């Protein structure tokens, strides 16, 4: 028995129309959809919380989302009928026409994505891709990590962060509209679209608009996606081996480390501008209340080292944020607006604790302070044991 079908396309996938239901969403589409839901939920949560401890997880989730999107693009050319872009991509005017039909109650029933759904998918995929791109730029410019660390300046990364955050809110708006669309369409067609995305099946209807049948090519898809992912991975690895832009070498000057490190943690020269270092070196007789006189030759060498490696020379987050001295206490890095902002989540008691020993003791919490990187993941605030 053949059902009478009113179809805009000449051929419907006859093999799948037999019986009361048919498989519309293949395993590739379903797995992609729900993995993407999990990945995006995790990425939004870890991103919006802005916890440094969640930063690595956020980057991993972003990478996983990138892999999923890559797979989906490949599957859009090699999946089964309704997974293929050719089966659903339409002009925006078609989508507007569908919206008008919906409002007048004349909208037809599409087996796969309807034209409005198509444009939602395109908007979601584009926004997610833009989030991935801006995320990589933030990672490179601000954290000086990842594939573009050799090219992205701090200023560029910082600007990309604003775009990244804006896109994240845009994505949440799109997700809201997407869920609204699912609810409306489920009510209109009296068929749960959520269920369809879980088990993959939809009811056969007389007025279905189908698409030309296409056979899934999972083997080709996996090979293609595998090659694309391997290529992206190899490219990222190769780029990550380049030196990060504006990041100092890992070793402090020996004389500087020995002389200044005798009394306090030797601060990396990149955390203050040259003028601050010169003012400090000119007044070692009263160095924040202590006499820290140096022999002339040691003083000259240390002064030259600090000036040559001051914040102006480097492009790390610390160098950028600590470049402007405080007006009231020009020699104290801990009084700069940038320092205060960067440490705004650290409670005052943490600095006062015996385990830390004050705000100037950078190395106590920043395990990479010697290198001037001050990476988020290298922060470990020592926990003071509470007395019983």
């Amino acid at each position: 028995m053949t059902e009478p079908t009113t179809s805009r396309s000449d051929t419907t996938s006859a093999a799948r129309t037999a019986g009361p239901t048919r498989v519309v969403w293949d395993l590739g589409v379903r797995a992609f959809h729900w993995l993407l839901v999990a990945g995006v939920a995790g990425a939004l949560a870890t991103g919006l919380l802005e916890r440094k401890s969640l930063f690595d997880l956020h980057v991993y989730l972003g990478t996983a989302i990138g892999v999923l999107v890559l797979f989906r693009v490949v599957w859009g050319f090699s999946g089964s009928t309704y997974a293929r872009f050719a089966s659903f991509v339409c002009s925006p005017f078609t989508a507007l026409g569908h919206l008008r039909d919906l409002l007048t109650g004349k909208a037809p029933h599409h087996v796969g994505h309807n034209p409005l759904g198509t444009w939602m998918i395109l908007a979601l995929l584009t926004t997610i891709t833009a989030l991935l791109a801006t995320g990589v730029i933030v990672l490179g410019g601000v954290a000086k990590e990842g594939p573009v660390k050799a090219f992205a300046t701090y200023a560029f990364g910082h600007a990309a962060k604003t775009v990244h955050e804006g896109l994240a809110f845009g994505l949440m708006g799109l997700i809201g509209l997407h869920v609204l669309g699912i609810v409306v369409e489920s009510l209109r067609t009296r068929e749960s679209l959520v269920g369809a995305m879980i088990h993959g099946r939809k009811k056969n209807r007389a007025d279905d608009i189908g698409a030309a049948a296409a056979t899934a090519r999972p083997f080709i898809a996996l090979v293609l996606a595998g090659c694309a992912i391997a290529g992206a991975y190899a490219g990222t690895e190769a780029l990550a081996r380049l030196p990060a832009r504006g990041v100092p070498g890992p070793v402090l000057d020996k004389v500087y480390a020995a002389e200044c490190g005798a009394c306090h943690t030797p601060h990396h020269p990149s955390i203050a501008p040259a003028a601050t270092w010169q003012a400090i070196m000119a007044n070692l007789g009263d160095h924040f209340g202590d006499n820290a006189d140096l022999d002339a030759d040691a003083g000259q060498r240390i002064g030259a080292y600090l000036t040559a490696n001051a914040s102006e020379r480097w492009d790390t987050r610390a160098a950028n944020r600590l470049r402007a001295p405080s007006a009231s206490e020009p020699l104290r890095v801990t009084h700069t607006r940038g320092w205060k902002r960067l440490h705004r989540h650290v409670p005052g008691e943490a600095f006062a604790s015996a385990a830390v020993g004050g705000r100037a003791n950078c190395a106590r919490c920043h395990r990479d302070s010697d290198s001037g990187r001050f990476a988020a993941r290298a922060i470990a605030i020592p926990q003071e044991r509470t007395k019983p």
Partner: protein
Amino acid sequence: MKHLRRTLATLLVLAAGSTATLAGKSAAQQAIQDGYAAAARAADPAFKGFSAERGKAFFHAKHGGGKPETPSCTTCHTSDPTAAGKSRAGKTIAPMAASRSPERFSDQKQVEKWFRRNCSDVLGRACTASEKGDVLAYLLSL
């Protein structure tokens, strides 16, 4: 050959150094002491040598004239020179007693630098050669 000779020479110097340490102080430490003795004699012809006792009293005394936060050597070095101290910025200072930190008092420049800084902070003036020699005698005797 040249390499071997240099190694031998180094070993000899090290051996001489360690024997001197066992005997009380190294050649370098003795030289610094001698320098202070010569300066003290030049300042006061009646100078009769350094005293570990006087050095001990000086080290533990509460001096005036310097900064109120640092009235004594013991402020940072603690009253036990064989124990580690702590700088005002929170950095650990190795024990002052030469028996615990054998590399101490072997570099004239370093010794002078620390006397210059710390005498200014604790006493508000430079220390005399005889005060420095006494303190050294005390810390070398522990």
